């Protein structure tokens, strides 16, 4: 059932991407589900693959910083919604060489591997709750690789402008209770990228705020190259900057294998 729904959603999204279906008036807003599907496509599935040099700045309440620099490789499976991620850490210097591999499946737990260079150990790592922190940042795994569309109920609250951009304002409410009770997203009507998101805790207080500071077209695909996630309650934030990003660079599927964790492919990671 779930899988079918997802396919329907995907089809709808594809249809949406092509253009308004015949007979539907252009002024008609798409449904909240369609908006979220298209948001997912634009945000997490852009291109067949992606390569990015990412720098991450974690800033705590006192303004102290921790920096991370990594190369992030992503490939979408040719069929279905599976994705593979390869993350290699360049900085901090004392963890250089630490590498992380994730095989993401939409309907079951991820497979993950980690390489610890100091002891030459590559080990499988148990999957975690996707709402847990991504490498200690304010972003969760879901924020990085997307949250399954079927897990939430959506409602189009209103349409409004954020700055000079027209947005759909969509509220997502999880079907099962979770740390984030609900989330409100401002989604750009033209790019379908989120410009701002506010998530709330079960007591109805703002938990985190996401903002997209800079969006640039990369190979014709609008891409968020600078984004911030702020944990309002602990006054901690993480800024992610894509120093370089490219799509459809031709990452082979074989690259995303355990053995490449210890010997990172020099072609892609330098």
């Amino acid at each position, binding site marked *: 059932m779930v899988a079918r729904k997802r396919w329907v959603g995907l089809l709808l999204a594809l249809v949406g991407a092509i253009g308004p279906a015949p007979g539907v008036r252009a002024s008609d807003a798409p449904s909240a589900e369609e908006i979220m599907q298209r948001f997912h496509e634009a945000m997490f599935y852009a291109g067949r693959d992606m390569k990015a040099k990412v720098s991450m700045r974690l800033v705590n309440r*006192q303004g102290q910083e921790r920096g991370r620099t990594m190369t992030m490789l992503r490939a979408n499976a040719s069929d279905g919604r599976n994705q593979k991620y390869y993350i290699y850490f360049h900085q*901090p210097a004392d963890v250089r060489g630490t590498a992380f591999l994730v095989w993401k499946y939409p309907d079951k737990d991820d497979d993950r591997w980690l390489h610890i260079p100091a*002891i030459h150990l590559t080990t499988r790592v148990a999957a975690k709750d996707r709402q847990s922190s991504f490498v200690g940042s304010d972003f969760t795994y879901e924020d990085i690789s997307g949250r399954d569309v079927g897990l939430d109920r959506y409602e189009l609250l209103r349409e409004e402008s954020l700055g000079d951009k027209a947005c759909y304002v969509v509220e997502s409410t999880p079907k099962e209770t979770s740390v984030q009770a609900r989330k409100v997203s401002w989604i750009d009507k033209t790019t379908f990228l989120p410009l701002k998101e506010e998530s709330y805790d079960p007591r109805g207080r703002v938990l985190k705020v996401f903002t997209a500071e800079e969006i640039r077209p990369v190979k014709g695909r609008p891409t968020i190259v600078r984004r911030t996630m702020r944990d309002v309650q602990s006054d901690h934030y993480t800024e992610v900057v894509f120093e370089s990003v490219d799509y459809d660079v031709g990452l082979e599927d074989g690259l995303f294998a355990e053995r490449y964790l210890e010997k990172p492919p020099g072609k892609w990671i330098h």
Partner: protein
Amino acid sequence: MRNNMNNGLAGFSLVEWSIRRPKRVVALAVVLTAAFGTQFPKLKTDTNPKNMLPATSDVRMWNDEVDQTFALYEDTIVVGVAREDGVLNPDTLAKIARITDEAGTIPGVAAKDVTSLKNVDNVTAAEGMLKVSPLMAEVPQSQEEVEALKRTIFANPLLIGRLISRDGNTTAVYVPLERGADGKKIADDLRRTVGKLKGPEAYYIAGDPVARDTFGAEMFKLMGLFSPLAGMIMLAAIYLMFRSLSLAFLVMGVAMIAIVWSVGLLIGLGFPIHIMSSMSPVFLMAIATDSIHIFNEFYFRYRERKNKAQAIRETMSAVGRPVRYTALATAAGFAVLLFMHIIPVRVFGGLVAFGTVALRLLSFSLVPAILTFVSEEKMERASRTEDVGADRAARWLRSLGDLGARHPAATVLAGLAALALAVAGATRTVVNNNMVNWFKAGSEVRTADRVMNEALGGTSLAYIVASSHEEDSIKTPEALRYIEGLQRDLEKLPLVGKTTSVVDYVKRINRVLHGDDPRYDTVPDSREEIAQYLFLFGMSAKPADLDNVVDYRFQKANIWIQLKTWDARAMRGVIAAQDAYARASPFPLELKPAGTAYFNLVWNDEVLWDMVKGFGLALVVVFVILVFNFRSFKWAVVGYVPLLFTILLIYGVLGFAGKDFDMPISVLSCLSLGMAVDFAIHFISRLKQRLAEIGHESGRAPDTEVLLEALRWTAARPGKGIMRNAVLFASAFSVMLFAPLTPYVTVGGFIAGMMTLSALMTILYLPALIVLFKGSLFGRAS
């Protein structure tokens, strides 16, 4: 005695003025009281004993800094769950999960950091799979699952003593509070939460915020209950003494007026009512009973004169001077606290000093004015018994004074012996404070604390922060080994139940990554290894796990120390061990204590020593006032004896009883000062007056017989006033013996003892001393 002496300004007599215009005086008192009363709606309370130290004090600023650096919570409540046959079973674990979830929904609880067996991060490796995840994402159902969980839990030393007792019968849910949350309210909510759960488990709500906020709240409630209760008892006692209800109402009315004035003033000035100032009504009521000396004398005089106005004048003339000086001594004793460091101590001192002055002002205006309204017939009836010869109490007091006067040497020797014993006891006094012990032994708060401390590593939390000047220096093997060494040293202290630091996480990960091989339960040798373990942990566990033990730049490490008692001395031991370690093995990491237990120690030292210093200063000031009052150094020394004696005896008893010198005792000391010296002033002043009245000229020693007779008279007549005052006082405070908080029981018991003691000291010892040193005392006077 010159009449205008009583009333300050030469030629103007407040008493005379008041007797002539009684209605105006009453009206004025009513108007003033109403004016001060208008301030009451603005009343603010501050029940948090912590606020005795201002938010800007060094210790609070430092603790705030530490809380910020390590993302810590200032306050955490510990919910204990205990079951005799073990808590690791599906039923109890389900309850723990439920408590964890529900605690997060209570307003004021920092939901994301509520920690229990359900959600604590656990690092394990099984079948080639590294796992950093909440211990119990799902509550185990089958016996096999439970057994597996048990093995996991007991294989992780980080959990033992913190989340599970060694025997597996007790566990804890840690509920951190957001800044400014009311610990008592949240504790009550948690009690309701666990109250809904049925079954064989016992639940305990413990932790500093529970004790502190419960105490603050209870204290205010008790003050609200005991102030009127003490007032009513005094009222009844006065009625029994004087058989006049109007008189009883007069004394208490005057006390009420003084309370309204001083508390009104305090509120008007914008101060919140703090736990210390909340005690001032009872203090002022007690001090108000000093006017008993006026009534005592008035009734004697009225019986002799049968003329009301004349009796009032003569009374005020006779007791005016001692009453004024006792007021001065009391007010000065409390006013000295104004020069102390701790703001609530200053407020308390100022409040009581002002109230004392107000009381005395009323004694010379409102009291005589109202006495003019009392019907002669009633007075006649009441004064019938007031005859020194006929009165049983007076006769007894007379013979008591006589005993001291006739056997001065023996009395003084006996006193010295008692004193020596008292000093021996007093030296055993330990300055200590333990807020949990302010609750009675069987109380919920104390039981919870005891049970949790026995089962787990301890509910009292302290930190030692190790800091370096360089970034990333905590990640070195040397730094970690240094910290580890300190932990092992601290754990040797009997009151330290458990310590936790970043070292424990590193060792844990090292072991887990090496196939759970115990040989790897050590600090790794390379810096990269440590850095990568911490990186791995930081990217897998809850951010708080790592943040709580190292700062953002890996420049500081935070060592958690669980203490088994809230006693200030436990923390003192930790600091001593820390200093000894730093001396024995020098290393470029600076060690500094922090946390709630550290705060309590500083609070204990600062607030308590402030009170002790204030008390010491008050002793000096009171002595100076005595010198001025008696215009003689020697008389001042004699007058000082009952006060010193009483205080030393009290401390002696405290020392032998093994009772700590804590906050309530220090407040009590100040009160003793105000009261015990009063009796001596009354006694000596009246003795001197008596000698003058019966024709003895000052400047030479009186004949022994004349002196003895005067002493007997003083012991019997003003002595009765002293005794009445003491009994009143003691009875009012004895209600506190039934209070549910131990400080009140202590205060109640000791005030009752102290008043009786200082009255007896005055009546027995002053005659003995005066007879013994008669030559010196009278010889060179004037």
